[in-house]
């Protein structure tokens, strides 16, 4: 047992000396492994990054919210059938709240109406077009994490009275007020004056997904006063217990059917959506990254493994006499096998480490270039990379190492 340990440590030293003696050759050979490891780590990082970014932007509007919409969020082929549906109306929120209050042990907490439309917003000479303007009531702060960086959300009185006040997203504030505070300034939404009472904290946008940073929120009556034509209305319903989403969804479906007075034989003429369903839209992106990544990784590791197998065969050939000498001095087959396996593994490990370093630098670069993309090299990925490197080394080194261990000592010693 101790002998095995000494043999392994000896083999490591030889492997390192061997690489130092053949730096260029080793580097070139390790190239495949380097590329493979870069590919696998970047792939892993991209996938976790996308997931994280998605989760982050989704967590602003809690994942314990159900959305009553005219259309389903998933893609449908017969969209015309949905177009014919009756629109969702803001009054549904009040009626749903009354029904919830009347239901003992309801799974639902509160319903909040939101109407939205795209409008341009102006302050002084600055103009931002196609801004997502949303009208809602004060309960919105219960449903969503409203967290103004500056100022406040509108209060009950402003909401009910439909005061011309607004809460602007981080990016809007940035565009209209590059210097100075927007608070108490009056901006014009499609020419209608609104006083800024709050600025949203920065959320960050992610892969072009919907972001609260470019939204202007106003009290619902004010919204209806100016923008009600062509606007889109949804009702957000917060559930009591996110563990019981399915029950809540069933209950809400029941309430909506009652509200719409649908007889049992008729199908739903509305959709209840939840973020969970939206999450699956990410899967194709993640899958294609994974497939591309695995393909590149597999290909470069395959090429790398063949290169390393080749170089190990060369190394065995070059050092046939040394193998003979070692055998004469008492090296067993296992010893020789180990030595060359460790040499190929060491080569792959160095390749893996260089690959990790490159991947780290790339992640760092991406982080600088696209700050909104949450990218980081996880410990798990580092471990996987090292494991993959070691496996590549062992697999590619096995054939040459085996042939070396089987060499006849006399033949090996006679080799010139």
């Amino acid at each position: 047992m101790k002998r095995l340990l000494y043999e392994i440590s000896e083999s490591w030293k030889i492997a390192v000396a061997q690489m130092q003696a053949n730096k260029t050759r080793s580097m070139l050979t390790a190239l495949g492994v380097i590329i493979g490891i870069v590919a696998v780590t970047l792939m892993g990082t991209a996938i976790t990054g996308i997931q994280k970014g998605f989760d982050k932007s989704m967590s602003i509007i809690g994942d314990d919210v159900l959305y009553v919409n005219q259309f389903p969020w998933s893609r449908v082929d017969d969209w015309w059938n949905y177009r014919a549906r009756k629109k969702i109306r803001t009054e549904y929120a009040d009626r749903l709240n009354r029904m919830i209050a009347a239901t003992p042990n309801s799974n639902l907490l509160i319903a909040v109406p939101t109407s939205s439309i795209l409008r341009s917003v102006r302050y002084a000479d600055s103009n931002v077009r196609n801004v997502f303007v949303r009208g809602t009531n004060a309960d919105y702060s219960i449903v969503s994490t409203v967290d103004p960086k500056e100022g406040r959300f509108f209060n009950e009185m402003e909401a009910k009275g439909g005061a011309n006040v607004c809460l602007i997203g981080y990016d809007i504030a940035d565009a209209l007020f590059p210097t100075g505070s927007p608070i108490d300034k009056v901006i014009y939404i499609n020419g209608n004056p609104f006083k800024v009472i709050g600025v949203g904290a920065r959320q960050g946008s992610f892969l072009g997904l919907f972001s609260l940073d470019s939204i202007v929120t106003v009290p619902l009556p004010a919204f209806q006063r100016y923008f009600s034509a062509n606007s889109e209305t949804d009702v957000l319903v917060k559930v009591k217990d996110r563990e019981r989403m399915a029950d809540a969804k069933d209950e809400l479906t029941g309430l909506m059917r009652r509200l719409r007075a649908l007889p049992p034989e008729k199908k739903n003429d509305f959709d209840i959506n939840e973020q969970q369903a939206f999450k699956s839209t990410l899967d194709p992106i993640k899958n294609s990254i994974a497939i591309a990544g695995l393909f590149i990784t597999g290909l470069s590791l395959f090429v790398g493994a063949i290169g390393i197998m080749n170089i190990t065969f060369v190394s065995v050939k070059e050092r046939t006499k040394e193998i003979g000498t070692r055998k004469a001095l008492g090296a067993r087959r296992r010893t020789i096998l180990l030595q060359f396996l460790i040499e190929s593994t060491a080569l792959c490990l160095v390749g893996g480490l260089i690959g990790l370093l490159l991947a780290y630098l790339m992640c760092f670069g991406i982080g600088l270039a696209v700050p909104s993309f949450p990218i980081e090299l996880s410990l798990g990925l580092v471990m996987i990379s090292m494991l993959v490197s070691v496996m590549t080394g062992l697999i590619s080194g096995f054939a040459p190492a085996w042939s070396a261990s089987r060499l006849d000592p006399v033949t090996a010693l006679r080799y010139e």
Partner: protein
Amino acid sequence: MHPNNTRPPGPIVIDIENITKHYVMGQETVHALRGVTLQIHRNEYLAIMGPSGSGKSTLMNMLGCLDTPSAGRYEFNGKDVSAMDDDELAAIRNREIGFVFQTFNLLPRSTSLRNVELPLIYAGIAPATREEMAAQVLREVGLGDRMHHKPNELSGGQRQRVAIARALVNDPSIILADEPTGNLDSKTGEEIMQLLENLYQRGNTIILVTHEADIATHSRRTVFLRDGLIESDRVTEGVDTQSLAFSN
């Protein structure tokens, strides 16, 4: 050539009987050894002589457990070698046999110390002890000041001394030297022979392969091989081996 100080022979170390070895090369079969019977005792200093191609190295490899005979019996320290597998043979080579090669066969990138340590690694000896033992033997062969030199920083004679130190370090039963002076000039060769004489005097058993008669005079017994057979086996003390007839 040497003072009359032959040491009394000890127990039998090597006992071979009717050993043959042939190599099949395509259509042809080369009979390197055709039936060699030989006994070697502890404390002997034996030279194996013969013209080139007579089978000296083949016999040497056989004695050194590097090769197994095609037929015949071989007992090393009373153990039947022909029945051993690769790893058992490796263990015998590691503990009982010290090889000295014509071309030194040192690891080019390792220092003298590391080269000498090699057999100790395979013997499973701990690093600190290993280094101590290797340093000790290097001092004994006169290389106390060359321990951290690599082979290419040493002269031929010094390289062969490192190789001899490596052969000695595990305190083997026999030392096998195949043309140890073959790659050295005559003066350096003579120094190496002096070193082997010293080792013999200290109690080592030495088997020397050479085709040079004046090198063989250092031994106490000479075995002549011709065409894979022992032609003669005689005590060479006092005998002028150069007058012995053999053609190259």
